[in-house]
């Protein structure tokens, strides 16, 4: 059982997301993260899904995904050289004083930016791979994480290879 990052090119039509997620849920998969948005082609969207499952089961879901009429292309990025990123917003308790300074120091180390400041809290924005975001959140816990929001992973292949096209 290991995480798989799937990149799915779909027609941007009503219901397409439930078609996709339904194939996971009926097999008892839990989706770790999900990101959807328009892509380079008009009328199309790209879905990035991270699931944890054994290889054979993930392969079966991919084949079933390929059968959906509104799905154009499914790729498992996991075995490829790729860039994966996620963006997170973290609202941390930060009273005036030492903790505020510490938090800002941590932010610098993680190359996170402070995107909102209030007397009692800071909002940090961080971009990176899942591990990095997890690590930052863990460090900030001691100060009190009031809210933690993340986009879900998106991924792209390195080099000139692309995930697209007719299937």
């Amino acid at each position, binding site marked *: 059982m290991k995480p798989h990052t799937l990149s799915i090119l*779909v*027609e941007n039509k*009503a*219901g397409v997301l*439930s*078609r996709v997620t*339904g194939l996971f849920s*009926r097999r008892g998969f839990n989706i770790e993260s999900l990101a959807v948005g328009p892509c380079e082609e008009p009328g199309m969207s790209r879905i990035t899904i991270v699931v944890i499952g054994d290889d*054979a089961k993930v*392969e*079966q879901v991919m*084949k*079933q995904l*390929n*059968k*959906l*009429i*509104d*799905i*154009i292309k499914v790729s498992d990025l996991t075995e490829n050289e790729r860039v994966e990123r996620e963006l997170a917003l973290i609202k941390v308790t930060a009273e005036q004083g030492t903790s505020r300074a510490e938090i800002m120091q941590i932010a610098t180390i993680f190359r996170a930016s402070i995107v909102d400041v209030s007397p009692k809290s800071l909002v940090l924005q961080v971009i990176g791979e899942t591990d990095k975001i997890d690590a930052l959140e863990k460090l900030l816990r001691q100060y009190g994480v009031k809210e933690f929001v993340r986009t879900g992973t998106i991924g792209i292949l390195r080099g000139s290879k692309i995930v697209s096209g*007719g*299937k």
Partner: protein
Amino acid sequence: MKTGAKILVESLLREGTEIIFGYPGGVVLPIYDELYDSPLRHLLVRHEQAAAHAADGYARASGRVGVCLATSGPGACNLVTGIATSYMDSTPVVAITGQVPTNLLGNDAFQESDITGITLPITKHNYLVKSAGDVSRVVQEAFYIAGTGRPGPVLIDIPKDVSTGLAAEVKLPDKVTLRGYNPTYKGHKRQIEKALELLGHAERPLIYAGGGIISSNASPELMEFATLASIPVTTTLMGIGCIPCHHPLNLGMLGMHGTEYANFAVTECDLMIAIGARFDDRVTGRIETFAPHAKIIHIDIDPAEIGKNRRVDVPIVGDVKGVLKDLLALMKKQGAHEVWLKKIKHWKQHHPLKCPTTDGLHPQFVIRTLSELVKDKAVIVSEVGQNQMWTAQHFCFHNPRTWITSGGLGTMGFGFPAAIGAHFARPDVPTFVIAGDGSIQMNIQEMGTVAANKIPVKIAILNNMYLGMVRQWQELFFDHRYSFTELPPVDFVKIGQAYGIEGMQVNRPEDVLPAFQASLDCDGPFVMDFRIEREENVFPMVPAGAAINEMIGGHPR
């Protein structure tokens, strides 16, 4: 400008639809009004489930797309079992449902249910049509998707305001192209060569033939391939009819209630060629011991079936008819597999299916009598349970599409309405439904449909006053504890009479043939209530979780 309802009916005609099976209601009133004086034939059923099964039966018997129609909410929900049945057996059906007007969608409006949501996992595709201008394109696509590649049901949900809305004529393409839907028809040449290499080295090859052969109309190619290469053929429940029962290479059905010789052959073969079959658990028994000595060639149009349940040595994705043609074209002369065929012949002689000879009315005898009477001139539809297995085992099928049964879903209540649909596909031969007393009562209201329309479906009920197949499991595996499987006696002839259908109750073996003859002499529907031995079992049987050569109720080895 035309209404969506008119465009719908015209589109169905354009696709060559002969008949639709349906039931009216509020939001489909505009569509029904269009049907009132349309050349498109409509059969009014008595329950929407029957409409879905009838469309399915029509599709299975004809190879064409079957169509059913229901209103929103309860009507649409009543189609669900039928749609799931056709999804599991990959049959081409287009189901049309009415929906509440678009401005009320999601409001829990009267008779609203999210039927596209409900049928998402049991359709090949579905549509919620948003404007009258989309109707003709959607119908064209739906027929294309349902009937090509691996066939399957497609649902079209049409809100009332789409039926009444106006749209101009849309110019449709001659051929549908969908970017996300391109089935692979042609098998990969290198894979085909690899398959032939394996075949060249095989000493004990076996063809495991499934419903894909029937849906691809590939029986002639299968027969040619099997005969030229001297390969015995065992069929799944869905594959029955792809090779004539009496053909020397035919081993009959494999699996849970398969023949002993088919299951022995599976266990001993060194090469298994699976064609349009999917290694279902009712076929394989314990999967680890299925064809344990065999290399596997798997030919299927659906890449998702390859390697799903069993590791495959040579996968060939493609339409089985075309792949078989390519195999034939490239095949060199093959060995005669004499030792293997001799062994199989020996098994066949010493392990035949048993037909009890004790006193009383035995279902196997009933089926064999019908088989000898009608020979290859009938379509046989079964319900689900022991009746289904006895028919699969003891009726001698000669041709594809003459055996119709719910395999994957095992839907009780499928048989009778499917037989109605089958009749419209094959009016040239009589259609029989072999039913159990339990199953027939799941859609017995369709007696109203056959009576009103004089549809000559012959209803043969193997009446054991039990949910027999479940009782059999209780007898064998639950210590004879018959928990809720006994059915009080029902006089089916009297029920038939109430609908105006002729019939006969049969208690003795000597009355079986006359009853079948009477059914054929009657030009309308006919009910036969066969009072069979109540606790007859279906044998041989592979207990759940056993290897398929570990059968009970067979001959000593």
